[in-house]
């Protein structure tokens, strides 16, 4: 069988992308968050758009069913932003739900069926206890064979971490550097869940202890703070609290159009030049090697091939750092660093905003937050802001080629997109 090179049958461009604030909002439901993201995206379309021109809507969502007792969320989102009766479709691939919504939207426009679609994602998680959220997220693993032995998401990524540490010598300290870097970025993102650096967090705890007349912690820098189990307790060894992304509420939206009409809406569209998606065994035990995510490599391969670019060409990437080890593995799987060298690259500052390969300038899932169903399109929001020069204090030099990498669960779904500014 001859494999035809995959391509989009017509070009697709992003004309705007925006998000709600990410954080813990117990007073807001999914629909409220989605409305906020929708208003944000309309505000990013340079020449404006009449929302009635949108022909279809794709919404990523992991589990409003369990988080809010609400199934069938896509038509509700369409209703709340005034888009009924347009077709509204939900995509669910765990934490990659809206990366997949984005891809389905791209495919729909490329097919010629629609010229203008809205893609988005939403998750409202904070109305439940942490224990309940842990259970619901764990359901995205293999419920019969992993959850039964006690698997939780932190402990799934801990498996990857112990193997990576054993095989490559990756250290807990190197993973702490990833957390410090992403919080530094998130501190500059006004919509992030955590808007303070780990140093600021440390200083505010010292100040609070002084104020209350409690013993004053002896931390002198972030590393000492992160090595103190009272500040950074173990969740699932070797993963500690500050290795984990938070439980976040939020929504994100983007508008995709056929390339040939993009300039009706903006003089600076962002072109989708590569898309890739792959699946893998749901359970980690079904994979031969867990030092990398095979689905990441395959999805990236497809996207690079379609785009005709190499990892070297990518100037900025938003990668799926649900845990610090996940960012390290992602930067290797995407070909930015050799296998086993991702942790050292982070330690040496290569992935910082001013490094050779800026990773997660938004703050990543770690600091910007991880409202699971909204994360994939949330990554596109950062790519959009960086490419259009609206990233404020996070802005890196002119970005013409960027990548977004969105993982479902422990890697059984991965979707990768490459965007170009011409």
């Amino acid at each position: 069988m001859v494999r035809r090179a995959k391509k989009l049958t017509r070009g697709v461009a992003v004309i705007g992308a925006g998000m709600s604030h990410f954080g813990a909002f117990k007073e807001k439901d999914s629909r409220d968050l989605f409305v906020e993201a929708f208003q944000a995206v309309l505000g990013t379309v340079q020449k404006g758009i009449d929302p009635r021109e949108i022909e279809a809507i794709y919404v990523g969502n992991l589990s409003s069913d369990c988080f809010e007792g609400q199934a069938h969320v896509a038509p509700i989102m369409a209703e709340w932003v005034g888009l009924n009766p347009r077709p509204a479709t939900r995509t669910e691939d765990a934490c990659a739900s809206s990366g997949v919504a984005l891809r389905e939207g791209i495919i729909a426009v490329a097919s010629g069926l629609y010229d203008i679609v809205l893609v988005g994602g939403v998750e409202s998680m904070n109305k439940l206890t942490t224990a309940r959220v842990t259970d619901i997220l764990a359901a995205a693993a293999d419920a019969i064979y992993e959850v039964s032995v006690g698997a939780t998401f932190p402990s799934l990524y801990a498996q990857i971490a112990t193997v990576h540490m054993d095989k490559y010598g990756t250290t807990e300290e190197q993973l702490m550097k990833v957390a410090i870097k992403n919080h530094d970025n998130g501190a500059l993102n006004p919509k992030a869940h955590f808007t303070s650096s780990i140093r600021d967090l440390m200083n505010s705890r010292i100040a609070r202890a002084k104020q209350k007349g409690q013993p004053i912690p002896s931390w002198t820098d972030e590393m000492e703070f992160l090595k103190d189990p009272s500040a950074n307790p173990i969740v699932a060894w070797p993963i500690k609290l500050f290795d984990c992304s938070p439980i976040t509420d939020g929504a994100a939206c983007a508008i995709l159009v056929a390339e040939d009409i993009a300039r009706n809406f903006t003089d600076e569209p962002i072109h989708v030049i590569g898309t890739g998606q792959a699946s893998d065994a749901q359970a980690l035990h079904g994979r031969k090697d867990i030092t990398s995510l095979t689905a990441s490599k395959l999805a990236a391969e497809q996207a690079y091939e379609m785009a005709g670019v190499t990892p070297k060409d990518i100037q900025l990437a938003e990668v799926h750092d649900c845990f610090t080890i996940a960012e390290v593995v992602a930067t290797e799987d995407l070909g930015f660093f050799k296998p086993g060298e991702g942790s050292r690259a982070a330690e040496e500052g290569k992935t910082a905003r001013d490094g050779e390969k800026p990773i997660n300038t938004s703050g990543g899932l770690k600091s910007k937050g991880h409202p699971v169903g909204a994360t994939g399109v949330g990554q596109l929001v950062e790519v959009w802001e960086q490419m259009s020069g609206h990233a404020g204090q996070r802005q890196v030099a002119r970005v013409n080629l960027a990548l977004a990498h969105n993982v479902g669960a422990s890697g059984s779904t991965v979707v990768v997109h490459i965007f170009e500014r011409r």
Partner: protein
Amino acid sequence: MEVKEFTAASFYRFLDRKKLMGSKCKKCGALFLPPRPFCGQCLENEMEWFQFSGRGKLISYSVVRVGTTMYEEKGYGRDTPYCWGLVQLDEGPRISALLLGADLSRPDSITIGQSLEAIFPDKREEEGERNPVTFRLE
């Protein structure tokens, strides 16, 4: 022995009888643990049951201090952690397992590559409860 379907229900029923059972493809010989009815290697569906020795080595692990509700209800928690990991059976396939016999106050005392053996704790009383796959570090 009665003929059983290659399902999770059968797998756990065998486990209660202290047997770690997977399936073997009659066409290509591929082994599957847990069992499945359809061969992912050659795409045939002619399987037979295969009993694993229960001996293997440790691939990865984690010591969990914030567990699922099911595990918290079993009495595990921040001060009473549990450990689970991936085990590679001598016959090749891997399985996730609850791991007993390690010093959980010192997670780095556990060594990747360490040998393990399947154990079969008595089934819990609760109706319908499936006992987890359990291994002991040697």
